[in-house]
């Protein structure tokens, strides 16, 4: 995953509080819409970010509400059109290899977040930050007619079918 040389278009910093998730989603969804993502895609991208933030709150900060979370957002209009989001925290450092989605066959509450993030985004990378905390880098490319990179484009679901235009 290439590093971005230019500074992010938007930076958002919030405390690890569930009540602030909706605002973060609204911002991301709006920026995604501006790049040209369809409504369903904007919803999915918001969901991926929401899940990443939930995990930082629940696992990184153990539900403490005074932890900092920093988002850097690049609204890339060409080269090709895409949304790049880096989420950083000052929470517990874990081995990126342990951040894994579980087997979906085993239906139980929880354990969907990492799976959803991986399904929705085109690139996903977890790293330890030098100064402490974790960094999650995610990229979503704008689907084109040739490149219908939707989640379940494979399993031809009806609901998502509508988004490919």
């Amino acid at each position, binding site marked *: 995953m290439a590093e971005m040389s230019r500074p992010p278009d938007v930076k958002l910093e919030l405390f690890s509080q*569930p*009540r602030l*998730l*909706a605002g973060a*989603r609204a911002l991301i969804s709006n920026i995604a819409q501006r790049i040209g993502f369809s*409504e*369903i895609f904007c*919803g*999915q991208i*918001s*969901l991926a970010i*929401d*899940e990443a933030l*939930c995990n930082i*709150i*629940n696992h990184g900060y153990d539900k403490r509400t005074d932890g900092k979370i920093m988002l850097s957002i690049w609204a890339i209009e060409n080269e090709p059109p895409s949304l790049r989001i880096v989420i950083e925290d000052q929470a517990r450092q874990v081995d990126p290899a342990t951040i894994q989605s579980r087997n*979906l066959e085993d*239906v*139980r*509450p*929880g354990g*969907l*977040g990492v*799976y*959803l993030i991986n*399904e*929705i985004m085109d690139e996903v990378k977890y790293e330890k930050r030098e100064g402490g905390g974790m960094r999650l880098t995610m990229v979503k490319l704008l689907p084109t007619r040739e490149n219908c990179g939707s*989640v*379940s484009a494979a*399993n031809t*679901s009806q*609901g*998502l079918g*509508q988004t490919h235009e």
Partner: protein
Amino acid sequence: MNDTDQIEVTTEVLEGTTIIKPIGEIDLSRAPSLRHHLNEAQAAKPGTLVIDLAEVPYMDSSGVATLVEAMQIARRNKSRIILCSMQERVKSIFEIARLDAVFTIVENREIALET
């Protein structure tokens, strides 16, 4: 929990069937409130619990986890859960998580009551 973390819910109790209709986005901040309402409804052990999602424009995995939990309680109680009137955006998360085959999901409330 803040006031705004309470999810608005309307509950209707019919003969053997309870219908719960949450209103608003269901995420990490509101899932605990939804869980509370579902637990309350399930304590009365209705034969069928219909969850009408017509007014839920967004749900994250915290909301889904709450529904999966309710389904497990229903199984223990030998009762049923039916989800109805799901918006497209919410349906999309059930599909990605492959839970659309696990839950009984129907078009609208009328079908849910006939099922």
